[in-house]
């Protein structure tokens, strides 16, 4: 066989050719995502035009922004007719927006420290699987530390409050053998008695390790929103669980108390409850009794949120197959055990999106306190800042700033909840 007869065959491998221009890189991405059909292409062009015009119209407003000026009039003089924001109001009044107008400046580090510690405290709860469980001790201590930092006063008060809680838990543990209900009652009574006795001690040791006290009515700004949001969400979770379980209880009195509470609270707008807290209570209490306004508001918002969370969790409980309850019974677990180990972990997992929804909604609802003349961030903007002769007429900058703060917080919460849902996902989809 001569070489000539052999059909052509390649002796070496061809180098990799680049893919066609339309099937690679930016062009491919554009074709697939933006111009996959005539209709989509048209939509892309329109959306692009709108986006561009938004940037063109809003761009100068941001770029020309004045960051240093004593008043709105001065701002306008500096801008000299150009479009531009007057961010100077933020640089001058940032402290009022964050802490309110009466919190002493030299003490700003205290709420700030409490805010930083908040992350340390909730991290072990949020990332249970990744952090050592010992850190939960700090979480337990955090409310008392935060109280001491924000309100100041003698350290004896939060320490006694903590000891009262521990004493209550101790009583609860001791009486748990009798019955769960009795134990809870005994624990609460025990803590109350302890606090009552401790009241005499704290009165005499008011100056011991004392931080400069700050009254509740001196607090304001975003700090109040955060405080109300964090406290009310964390309190309303346990209350919500109890109410949801109570509503499913076989014991008629407990069941009806829970049903009436939930239905009543859900049937009343939050703003009404806040007015009750602010205005109506003042009629019932003798003049001179100052029942802390923030405490009153916390109680009302917690009640409100508990009722909603209870219904969300009830949905979770109802979604569990009957077999789960029966399985728990057949293992010989009593009510408390079956709830703790079988039912609630599953029900709560189902309820996460709903709970987060309530939490985010509640956090934003805390701005309603501005209506009862508390100076939260919206109250600060609408009241003192817009009423000052210097800044009357600045709207976009201030409300934009408030919106930004709320967006960051709420987006963070929502991202965490999505992550948590993925973490807890045990079924196969």
């Amino acid at each position, binding site marked *: 066989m001569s070489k000539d007869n052999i059909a052509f065959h390649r002796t070496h491998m061809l180098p990799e050719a680049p893919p066609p221009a339309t099937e690679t890189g930016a062009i491919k991405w554009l074709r697939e995502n933006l111009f996959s059909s005539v209709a989509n292409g048209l939509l892309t062009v329109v959306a692009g035009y709108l986006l561009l015009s938004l940037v063109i119209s809003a761009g100068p407003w941001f770029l020309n922004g004045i960051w240093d000026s004593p008043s*709105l*009039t001065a701002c*306008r003089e500096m801008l000299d007719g150009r479009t531009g924001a007057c961010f100077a109001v933020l640089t*001058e*009044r940032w402290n*009022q927006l964050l802490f309110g*107008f*009466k919190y002493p400046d030299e003490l700003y580090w205290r709420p700030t420290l409490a805010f930083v510690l908040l992350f340390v405290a909730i991290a072990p709860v949020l990332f249970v699987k990744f952090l050592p469980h010992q850190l939960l001790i700090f979480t337990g201590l955090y409310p008392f530390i935060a109280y001491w930092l924000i309100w100041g006063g003698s350290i004896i008060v939060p320490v006694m409050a903590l000891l009262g809680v521990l004493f209550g838990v101790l009583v609860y543990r001791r009486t748990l053998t009798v019955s769960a209900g009795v134990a809870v009652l005994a624990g609460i009574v025990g803590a109350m008695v302890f606090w009552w006795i401790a009241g005499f001690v704290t009165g005499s040791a008011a100056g011991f390790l004392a931080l400069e006290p700050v009254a509740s009515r001196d607090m304001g700004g975003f700090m109040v929103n955060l405080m109300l949001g964090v406290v009310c969400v964390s309190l309303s979770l346990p209350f919500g669980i109890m109410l949801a379980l109570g509503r499913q209880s076989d014991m008629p009195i407990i069941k009806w108390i829970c049903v009436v509470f939930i239905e009543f609270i859900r049937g009343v707008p939050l703003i009404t409850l806040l*007015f009750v807290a*602010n*205005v*109506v209570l*003042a*009629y*019932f*209490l*003798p*003049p*001179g009794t100052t029942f802390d306004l923030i405490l009153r508001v916390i109680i009302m918002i917690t009640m409100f949120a508990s009722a909603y969370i209870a219904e969300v969790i009830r949905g979770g409980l109802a979604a569990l197959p009957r077999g789960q309850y029966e399985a728990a019974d057949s293992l010989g677990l009593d009510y408390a055990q079956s709830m703790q180990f079988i039912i609630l972990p599953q029900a709560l997992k189902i309820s996460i999106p709903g709970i987060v929804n309530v939490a985010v909604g509640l956090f934003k609802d805390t701005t309603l306190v*501005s*209506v*009862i*003349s508390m*100076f939260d961030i919206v*109250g600060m903007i*609408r*009241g*003192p*800042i*817009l*009423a*000052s*002769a210097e800044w*009357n*007429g600045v*709207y976009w900058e201030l409300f934009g700033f408030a919106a930004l703060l709320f967006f960051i917080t709420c987006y963070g919460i929502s991202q965490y909840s999505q992550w948590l849902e993925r973490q807890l996902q045990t079924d196969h989809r």
Partner: protein
Amino acid sequence: MKKTVFLGALTAAGLVGGAAAAATLDDVKARGTLNCGVTTGLVGFAAPDANGVWEGFDVAVCRAVAAAVLGDPTSVEFVPTTGKTRFTALASGEVDMLARNTTWTFSRDTDLKFDFVGVNYYDGQGFMVPKSLGVTSAKELDGATVCIQTGTTTELNLADYFRKNNMNYEPVPIETNAEGQQQYLAGACDTYTTDASGLAATRAAFENPTEHVILPEIISKEPLGPLVRHGDNEWEDIVRWTLNALITAEELGVTSANVAELAAGKTDSPETNRLLGTEGNLGEMIGLDADWAVRALSAVGNYGEVFEKNIGEKTPIGLARGLNAQWADGGILYSPPFR
């Protein structure tokens, strides 16, 4: 059972409340601070500054009373109230007096059981129009679109005024003053109507205030003044005469600058002497010492000074005295004599 407890608590609260209301002066002295209800913020009338210190036209009344009663204009606890919470705050005893641009009306004075001690600002509803509209009188507003806050007395006044003058208008309902400002500037309405002082403050915040005019017609009476609870006439007298002292001081030419000098010895004017306590015993009659008015005046100055400092023509708000000038100068500010 619950109902009984509830009623019991109510009765107890009522009794204690009644007892406490009878001696507001003693309460204030024992507490060492005056609880004064103010607005949550109204330009020129009451607002905390960058350092958190309350300032304004209404705030000055609180400070004057505190200076007269307690000797210290700073020992005031300002309780911010909204339009919805102001009356309950006063009625429940949370505040000792309310100085919060509140219109003196029949039902508030009688039905709500308050006592207005006087008028510190005579306001009235007016109209603001852009200069380019070429309108010089409210009578020329036939057929105009009007931005108007809903649910207020201004809405009713507007309807009355246009009906009386046989004119038509188209209302553009708005919720707050801030919204009104935006709508008006955006051209959603030809004219914006609210209290004249509010119009002036709103206009002051505009980018080009000179392009807008406030029409001369005032279509309603809005006498604003401090008020106290029914039932404690001694306290009411103190607040009333502190306000009158500020007004009389302007009439007599007593200012914060010369009050110390005038009070040092007897002057030629007997009324000045009586006001400043160098003659007679007026202070004693209202349960205070002789220097009460001197303290109030050195703290905030006389009515004219308070006006000029907070809302007068040199401030951005730029209100003219108008009705609020002394009666001798063509206004209707008229304090009963100190005798």
